[in-house]
């Protein structure tokens, strides 16, 4: 019995391992080929690189305007996520503590709006903001992310604020804190686990988003990483070496973060789904 179970466990383990290798196989291919010359890539994509060189990387690094794209992506993602978290937590807190009809309806409207797909909004969005000249800047994009990201964030925060006893805040108010101080010193710190969840869900979305930035950001200097990857791929379609290196450069930062924050990211996704 013992032995049979052991064999079964091993078979499962090996089967899973094979699945996992197949799963990450595309990334392995990318890694291997990013160090090879164009000719070697097309003639034998499976072989390991003969003479290991960084040339593709330096090439892609320059042509993608990597530094600029990476900086744009970081600024947009960080500012959007920080603002979404703060503003949504404040709004959710206000809604929970002031349960008037108006607030309940507004909250319901936000929840209902989550079902609207971006494609149903993009055309009028571009028309409205194009006509007032508020396109083609990071700030416009960040502002839009707040609009699109707040419904889910308010919804998740709403559920957790309810679990904070109101007495806690009343005590702070009696002790002389203002409403704003109470929120930032008492409520927001208690909400940290929820904030982590919301930050993770939003980083995964905003860092990788393509369609909205492609409509809003027009000038090449404003491009985010997904945009610059896209245009790079469109311009150098046959030059496989630098393309592979370019893709690696796009994936690498996320992989490095994942290596360290893996536990939180998986937990964040779990928490975010239990609504």
């Amino acid at each position, binding site marked *: 019995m013992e032995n049979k179970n052991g064999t079964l*466990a091993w078979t499962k*383990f090996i089967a*899973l391992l094979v699945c*996992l290798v197949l*799963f*990450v196989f595309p*990334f392995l*291919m990318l890694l291997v080929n990013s160090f090879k010359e164009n000719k070697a890539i*097309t003639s*034998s*994509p*499976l072989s390991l690189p003969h003479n290991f060189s960084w040339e593709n990387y330096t090439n892609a690094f320059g042509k993608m305007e990597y530094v600029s794209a990476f900086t744009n992506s970081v600024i947009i993602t960080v500012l959007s996520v920080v603002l979404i978290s703060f*503003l*949504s937590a*404040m*709004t959710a807190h206000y*809604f929970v*503590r002031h349960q008037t009809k108006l607030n309940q309806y507004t909250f319901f409207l*936000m929840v209902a*709006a989550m*079902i*609207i*797909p971006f494609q*149903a*909004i*993009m*055309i*009028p*969005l571009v*028309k*409205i903001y194009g006509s007032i000249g508020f396109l083609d800047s990071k700030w416009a994009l960040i*502002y*839009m992310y*707040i*609009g699109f990201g*707040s*419904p889910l964030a*308010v919804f998740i925060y709403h559920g957790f604020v309810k679990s904070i006893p109101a007495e806690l*805040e*009343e005590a702070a108010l*009696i002790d002389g804190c203002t*409403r*704003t101080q109470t*929120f930032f010193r008492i409520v927001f710190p208690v909400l940290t686990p929820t904030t982590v969840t919301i930050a993770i869900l939003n980083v*995964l979305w905003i*860092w990788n988003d*393509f*369609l909205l930035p492609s409509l809003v950001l027009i000038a090449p200097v404003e491009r985010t990483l*997904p945009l610059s990857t896209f245009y790079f*791929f469109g311009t150098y379609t046959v030059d*496989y070496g630098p*393309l592979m290196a370019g*893709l690696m450069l796009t*994936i690498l930062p996320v992989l490095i973060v*994942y290596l360290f924050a893996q536990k939180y*990211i*998986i937990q964040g*996704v*779990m928490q975010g789904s*239990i609504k």
Partner: protein
Amino acid sequence: MITEKGLWNRLRLRLLFTGPTLFAFLAVMIIPFLYGIYLTFTNWDGISTTSSLVGFDNYVSVFKDAVFWKSFLLTLKYVFISVALINSVAFLLAYVLTSGLKGQSIFRAGFFIPNLVGGIVLGFVWQFIFSNVLVYVGKELSLPLFSASWLSDPNKAFWTMIIVTVWQYAGYMMVIFVAGLMNVPKDILEAASIDGANLWTTMRKMILPLMVPSFIVCIFLSLQRCFMVYDLNLSLTKGGPFKSTEMVSMHVYEKAFLSRDYGVGQAEAFVLFLLVATITIAQVYFSKKLEVEA
């Protein structure tokens, strides 16, 4: 709760706490959404400052647009197959990875990796796999299945979309299923096994009914994401060969921004919204009825 004194103080508090969020939300989502409905009744071409009301002409054009319905049906087929496969693969992985295997958290982390990367990049990676690596393997091992790039065959190109979609989202849904499976109470499973229930019976009569909430979330998320697929479509197949894999999202984009037919494009987007909303709400409503208490 203690309330603020004075109307001004209350208003200031409200503006401070809800003002910025609600302004962005209304100005970015609600107003464009409503304005979009208005746009469907105009013939705006994207450049001119004026446009005139044309009544239901755009909707008539939508119903006559054979290409739209073709890509719509294609999207339905794609969504149906993808959602079914994503959730089966994800559930199976989650089930195996909650059975107390060694290194199961490493496996979970590994299967999640595709979700860290955007659809654009994933599409390019797989484009290389399908048009170079697999063709090379096909030639070396003389496998006719892989001898020509799948991306140049309309029928196979459709399946590349499915394969990559399932590969991309299975890990995400797996994480949600894992959370659900960990909440299935161990004592009732033990009781069942003492009563002599085999694996299949336990699965059918206990685990699956208890997992209904997880299935609701996963099916909802995968439905929404698959219906709206754009990035992957653009970078993997570009809608080709010969527009054979053009999903509805890409069609709307092209109608509006490339053919400059904004009114019709928006009308199609609106029809799409109505159908997706109906399908997802119906899905949640009907599957809520299957929920049970442990």
